C-alpha cells in the first residue's frame, strides 16, 4: 500500500500524487495539516516532520524523489 503524507500547500505532494496517478498506482493521501492522528502517525512511523513523506509498502521515501519511488515500487 502507498500512503502519501501531505499538507494543503505542498507542491511536491501534488507532483508525487500526479506521478502515482500517471503510473496507475493507487495511493491513500493523509493530510497531516487537517488530521492530527495522521500527523502523529507520520511522526511516529517515519520520524519525519517535513512533507511529502511517502510510505511505499513499508519503505519510507522523503520528498518527491522519482528514483527512490521507482525503486520502492519495484521491490
Amino acid at each position: 500500500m502507498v500512503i502519501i503524507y501531505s499538507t494543503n500547500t505542498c507542491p511536491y505532494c501534488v507532483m508525487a500524487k500526479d506521478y502515482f496517478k500517471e503510473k496507475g498506482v493507487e495511493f491513500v493521501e493523509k493530510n497531516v495539516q487537517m488530521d492530527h492522528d495522521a500527523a502523529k502517525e507520520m511522526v511516529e512511523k517515519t520520524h519525519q516532520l517535513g512533507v511529502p513523506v511517502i510510505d511505499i509498502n513499508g519503505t519510507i521515501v522523503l520528498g518527491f524523489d522519482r528514483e527512490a519511488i521507482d525503486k520502492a515500487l519495484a521491490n
Partner: protein
Amino acid sequence: MYTVYGILYTYYASLISNYMYDLIIIGGGPAGVAAGVYASRKKLNALLLTKDFGGQAVTSAKIENFIGHIAISGLELARALEAQLRAQKHIEIRDGIMVQSVKKIDGGFEVADLKGGTYQTKTVLMTLGSSYKHLNVPGEKEYSGKGVFYCSTCDAPLMQDKAAVVIGGGNSGLEAARDLLPFASKITILEFAPTLKGDAVTQEALRKDPKVEIVTQAQTKEILGNDFVSGLMYVDLATGEEKKLATEGVFVAIGMRPNSDVINGLVDLTPTGNVIVDHKTMQSSAKGIWAAGDITDGSYNQINTAIGEAIKAVLNIHEYLFTDRV
C-alpha cells in the same frame, strides 16, 4: 519519406551512440522551457534534460509578478510550462534525469547523467538555476526534515501552535515568516546583518504582528535536539554573547547557490559560483556553452528575466550554429 526519416531521427537520435545534437538544454525551469520552445521553433536538433519542470518557482504559493497572469501558483506555472514544452514538435525531452557532468570533446561536448547515459552535442545551454543555501552548522544535516526546513510553503502548516525560527531576513526569509503567520504561535527572524534586506512593505507588515520578533546581528551556531529539533544556539554579534532559543522548527532562508558544479572547470565562474556570461548573447567564457537564468552572474533572479535570457541565448546559439561557423 524524408519527413518520416526526420521524425524517426529526431525521436531515436539518442539511441545512435555517436549522434551529435545541435543543442542540449540542461534544466527544466522557466529558462529551460523557454529555450526548448524556441529551439523547437528554430528546428534545432535539441534535447532537454531535466529532473522535473518548474524549477524553484514550484515552491511559490502565489506568483503575482509573472507577466500575463494576475496571480498564478508555482505548481500551476510548472504544469503550464511542461504542457507548452510537450506541445512542441521538434524537441526531444528527457525528464527524471540528473546531469552529472559536461565534458569537452572533439567538435562539442559530452553530457553524462547519473543513470549512466551520455549525449553528445555541439552546444550546451545551462539553465539549472540554483538551490537552497545551507547553514553548514552542527545539527543542520541531522535534523533536516526533523525540524530543519527549506520549503516554507510545504512545511509551515506543520508548525501549528509551535514556536518557529526563520534564519535570514532577505525576501525569502520574510516570505517564510509570512507563510508561518497563520500557524506558528511565535516567529523569530534571525538576521546576520544589522538590518533586514527584504522588501520594505513585507517588513512593515511583519513588524506590526505581535507574534513576530526580529533579531539582527545574530549568527546561528548550532541546531539542537534529540529525535527532533528542540532549539538553536546563536551568537549576538553586538555583544559576543551566546544565546539559546527554544523552537521546534527552523526554516533556513539564507539565499540560494547556483547549480554550476557540473560545468565547474569548463567556464569562468564568479566567487559565488555563478556562470559569467556576455549579457548580450548569454554565452559563457567557453565557446559553445551558454547559460541563462539564476545560474548566471548578475541575474535578477526573476522568472520573467530568466525567460528573456534563455530566448536570447537560443537565438544566439542558432546564429552560432548556422551563421558564424559557415
